[in-house]
């Protein structure tokens, strides 16, 4: 290797180094703070990010994981022949037992399938699938995706629990921004 080649390589290294070096003490101080924010935010929100990620994946695949009752049904009568909603709710309430005492939360009518899904207000969130035309109860099960949604949003830890979800979002944003800055100025934190 000749001396001129070595000198050229050294000059290129210096040029690369200068490109990454911050221009002022202000940027250098900011970079130091950014590094500490990245470090502390990364460690402190670890659990939140893990819970939000795991529950998010589970919610994306809630049908495949069987988190919600899925009943296949072909309607035998026209939608116009459906029983009144109050009567369908009565059939569903009788089928779910004690959970029915909490009252009906919502009714999801599906004319194409000839069914109505009656969801209850109890803590476990029971759901009964009822045939629109006859009132026959096809299935009673738990809506575990609702539980997963509450865990995802932090609501399961109480009314203030959603602040945990907010904190995870803010922390993740800080991690992205500080990580980007550290990538831009990798040598400025020391």
């Amino acid at each position, binding site marked *: 290797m000749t001396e001129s080649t070595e000198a050229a390589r050294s000059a290129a290294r210096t040029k690369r180094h200068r490109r990454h070096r911050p221009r002022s003490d202000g940027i250098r101080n900011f970079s130091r703070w950014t590094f500490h924010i990245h*470090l*502390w935010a990364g*460690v*402190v929100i*670890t*659990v*939140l990010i*893990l*819970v939000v990620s*795991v*529950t998010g994946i*589970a919610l994306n695949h809630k049908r495949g*994981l069987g*988190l919600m009752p899925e009943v296949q049904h072909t309607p035998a009568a026209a939608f116009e022949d459906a029983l009144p909603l109050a009567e369908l709710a009565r059939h569903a309430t009788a089928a779910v037992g004690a959970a029915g005492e909490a009252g009906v939360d919502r009714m999801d009518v599906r004319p194409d399938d000839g069914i109505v899904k009656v969801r209850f207000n109890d*803590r*476990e*969130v029971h759901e009964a699938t009822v045939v629109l035309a006859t009132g026959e109860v096809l299935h009673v099960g*738990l809506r*575990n995706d609702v*539980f*997963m949604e509450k*865990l995802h949003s932090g609501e*399961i*830890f*109480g009314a203030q629990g959603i602040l945990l979800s907010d904190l995870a979002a803010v922390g993740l944003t800080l991690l992205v921004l500080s990580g980007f800055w550290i990538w831009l100025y990798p040598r400025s934190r020391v």
Partner: protein
Amino acid sequence: MSHVIALLLGMFVVPGVLLRLGHHLRRQSLTARRMFWGGIVGWCGAVLLMVVASVLPPVLWTEGAREVAVYWSLLVGGLAGMGVGALRRPG
């Protein structure tokens, strides 16, 4: 209420203390280093336990062992790990 406080302490304070203990680790005393590594192992194990207990099986936990695991494991795991690390003799 104590459940929530235990969860918040285990979720934010314990990793914060571990991060502080890990600062300039090589210059720390042997006991501090053992506490740090004990805490890391205990807390990481507790994180795994907490996440698994909270979602498996995917039904609501309102009481019992699962609720205790979700709320208390992070705090107890981290402190127990640090305690074991501090008490363990070199050998």
